[in-house]
C-alpha cells in the first residue's frame, strides 16, 4: 500500500495544507485587527502615551522586564505596574527617579536613566495605558 502513497501526494498536502491554514490565519487576523480597538476601548492612546512607548523602546526596557508577559524575565511585570503601585502614576515616576546611579551592592537594580519630568510623565502614561488593555483576565494576581 505504501507505493500508493506517492511523493506528489505528499507535496500536494504540503502546498494545499499550508495555503489552507495560511488563509484561515489571515481571516482570523483580519477579524482580530477589527476587534483590538473595540476590546481595548478603555486603553486610550494619547500623544503622551505614544511618546512614552518610544521612550520605553529607546531604553530597551523589555530587555529586563516583561510587559503583558512578554520580554525578559529578569525584572517585574510592568503590564499591571500601574495597578500594583496603587493606581498612581506618581509612584511610578518616583520609583524610576529614585534608582541609585551605581546600583545596589549584590542585588539587581534598575539603572538611573536621568529622565526629565516630561519623559517620566510619558512613561507613566504609557504604563497606565498598558494596564488598561483587556488581557482576558491575565495575570492571575496583582504580583504579575
Amino acid at each position, binding site marked *: *500500500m*505504501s507505493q*500508493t*502513497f*506517492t511523493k506528489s*501526494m*505528499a507535496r500536494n*498536502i504540503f502546498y*494545499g495544507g499550508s495555503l*489552507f491554514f495560511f*488563509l*484561515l490565519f489571515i*481571516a482570523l487576523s483580519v*477579524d482580530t485587527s477589527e*476587534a483590538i480597538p*473595540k*476590546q481595548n476601548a478603555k486603553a486610550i492612546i494619547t500623544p503622551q502615551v505614544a511618546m512614552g512607548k518610544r521612550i520605553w523602546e529607546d531604553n530597551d526596557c523589555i530587555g529586563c522586564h516583561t510587559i503583558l508577559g512578554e520580554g525578559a524575565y529578569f525584572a517585574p511585570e510592568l503590564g499591571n505596574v500601574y495597578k500594583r503601585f496603587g493606581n498612581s502614576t506618581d509612584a511610578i515616576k518616583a520609583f524610576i527617579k529614585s534608582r541609585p546611579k551605581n546600583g545596589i551592592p549584590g542585588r539587581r537594580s534598575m539603572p538611573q536613566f536621568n529622565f526629565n519630568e516630561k519623559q517620566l510623565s510619558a512613561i507613566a502614561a504609557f504604563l497606565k495605558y498598558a494596564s488598561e488593555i483587556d488581557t482576558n483576565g491575565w495575570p492571575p494576581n496583582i504580583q504579575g
Partner: protein
Amino acid sequence: MPSSYTIERRDYPPGDLAIWIFILAELLVFAIFFATYAFTRSNHVALFNHSQLSLNTNLALINTLALITSSYFVVRAVAAIREDKTRLCIRWLIAAVMMGFIFLVVKIIEYHHHYHNGINLRTNLFFMFYFSLTFFHFMHVILGMVILSAVAIKARQGHYSSTDFTGVETGACYWHMVDIVWLILFPLIYIMK
C-alpha cells in the same frame, strides 16, 4: 445501477492511503473542536440555547440536503469512471461542485444575516464556537470543491479509466469527509437543545 464493479475486490481502503491519513488527521481536529464545544456547552446551557434561537435552521437544512445530494453525485461519478464513462463522470463531478456552490452561497447568506445584526466571533462563547466551527468547515468545503475540480480536469485530460480511478476515489473520500463533518455539525450546533 450497473453491477460490473461488484464482482471485483480491490485494495481496501479505496483511494490513496495518504488521503486517509489526511482525513483521519482532519477528523481528529474536528473531534477536538466538537468535544470542546460539547464540554463548554454543558457549562453554559442557557446561553447556548438562547443564542441558538437566532440561527436559521431552515437554511442549514437546505445546506444539509445540498451536501448529501452532492455526496450522492460523487458516488455516481465514481461509478461512472469504473465503467470508463469519463464524460459522465465529469458531469457528476461538476454537479457535485455545483451543490458545493449552493452550500457556500447559503452559508454566506447566513453569515451576512448575522453580520447585519452585529453578531460576530466575539459576541459570546456560543457564537465563538458557531463561527469557528462553521467557518473552518466552510473552508473545507472550498478545499473539497478545489479537489473535485482538479479531479474533473484530470479526468477530462484522460488520466482515469476503469482500471485506474484511484484519483477519483481519493477526491470522493475527501468530499464525503466534508459531508460527514457537516452531518455532525448540523445537529450539534443548530438542533441540540
